[in-house]
């Protein structure tokens, strides 16, 4: 029954699209097979940069996010400046659209003309994404840490662990297990937002597709780029579903 209704609904949708007045035009500009084949190697080449950037930024975000979360939950009075700084960091970075963060870092840092500062737009874009996503991921970690019952901390201290050991061996392992699905969700977002570094100029997939498209008003390269993003984000989403199911069992 579900199969039948799926076929009917999808058939109707396709029917509406392909019988529309503009369809022949759309097919020619967005879904031209020859254009697809022509542009695909260049777009794929650009996408490789996205993948590399994504992997490096993700690793950096996992570390920086954890540092921010630990700073926010610290208790020692002497660490107040650190708590304040991390709270402000999270508020500011979460409050600004990611595209603006990329602009501000990408064009602002080189404009300072400080020696030793990176000028490569890929590096700057990576830094911007790392900062923006660390703010989100830091909050995810913090929620996980705060969800671990205080009695766990009491038990860990009671067996003689230090505060740091309690966090490392008892609180964090439980916290990270709990927030793995929301963390993965943020990484699906990040994988797409890597395209934002294109505004700084590097030839990643979206940028390449855009250049190809604007040279002859053919948008098929953009569709090729979209497919490549889906190749990464859909498996990630399925992995996430799989995790959630296993957790519920």
């Amino acid at each position, binding site marked *: 029954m579900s199969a039948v209704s799926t076929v009917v609904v999808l058939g109707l949708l396709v029917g509406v699209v392909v019988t529309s007045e503009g369809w022949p035009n759309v097919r020619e500009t967005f879904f031209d097979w020859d254009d697809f084949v022509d542009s695909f190697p260049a777009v794929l080449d650009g996408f490789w940069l996205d993948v590399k950037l994504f992997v490096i930024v993700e690793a950096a975000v996992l570390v920086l996010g954890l540092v921010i979360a630990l700073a926010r939950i610290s208790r020692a009075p002497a660490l107040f400046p650190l708590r304040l700084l991390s709270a402000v960091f999270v508020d500011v970075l979460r409050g600004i659209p990611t595209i603006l963060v990329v602009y501000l870092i990408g064009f602002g840092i080189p404009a300072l003309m400080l020696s030793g500062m990176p000028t490569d737009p890929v590096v700057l874009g990576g830094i911007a994404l790392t900062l923006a996503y660390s703010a989100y991921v830091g909050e995810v970690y913090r929620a996980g840490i705060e969800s671990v019952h205080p009695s766990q901390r009491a038990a860990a*201290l*009671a*067996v003689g662990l230090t505060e740091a050991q309690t966090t490392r061996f008892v609180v964090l392992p439980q916290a990270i*297990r709990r927030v793995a699905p929301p963390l993965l969700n943020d990484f699906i977002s990040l994988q797409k937002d890597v395209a934002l570094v294109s505004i700084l100029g590097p030839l990643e997939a979206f940028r390449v597709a855009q250049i190809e498209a604007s040279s002859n008003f053919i948008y098929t390269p953009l569709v090729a780029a979209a497919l490549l993003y889906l190749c990464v984000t859909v498996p990630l989403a399925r992995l996430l579903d799989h995790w959630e199911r296993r957790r519920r069992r």
Partner: protein
Amino acid sequence: MTAVLELRGVTKAYGDRPVLRGIDLAVAEHAAVAVIGASGSGKSTLLRCIDLLEEIDDGDVLLDGAVVTDPSVDPVAVRRRLGMVFQAFNLFPHLTALQNVMLAPRRAHGAARDAAETHARELLARFGLAGREDEHPDRLSGGQQQRVAIARALATRPRALLLDEVTSALDPELVGEVLAVVRELKADGMTMLIATHEMSFAREVADEVCFLHEGLILERGAPERIFTAPERPETQRFLRRLLEAGRL
């Protein structure tokens, strides 16, 4: 002879609400002292204060004659010399039974992996948990979890054991197996301070019973005397209520 554990005029309040109002208490080596009293009388707080999980407001806690509630004393070093067992077990759910028992010897005391594992397996086997070493806590019954928790508290070879209502969260049919373990520890000469609701058990195991009422120890003495001839009207009322509830 100095007591292993001693409290002198310990007071503790949560905000404006006094919980402990001047507790004097001593537990001699190899002795078991039971603290009885209604829920909310301060039994748990008393044990948490001794293990330095709560800061006291005034008075002193002494371990082997040395004050441990002084700000200059490292609380971690003190906790490493005490063992605590909680009402709700508080096992680490992400670790197996064996890993729960090995964590403190390995990390807090720097024991070698093999030595820690051998000792942990011995403790678990001694409490009837041979074969369950690799189970996570959620696969164990309440009684088994509490026995793992007792093994975990003993793994660091503490000077004294603090037992906080260790059978209160258990189904009635599982209480016996945990009490048997405590009885065995007593026979081995473990120094213990036991907060409990199990009056017959307190009567059997304890060398001294203290009745805690609204943050004060109102009456103390040999178990036989406290349970058969209590002097204070509050103690009489508390025991009568337990008797009526069929808990004595």
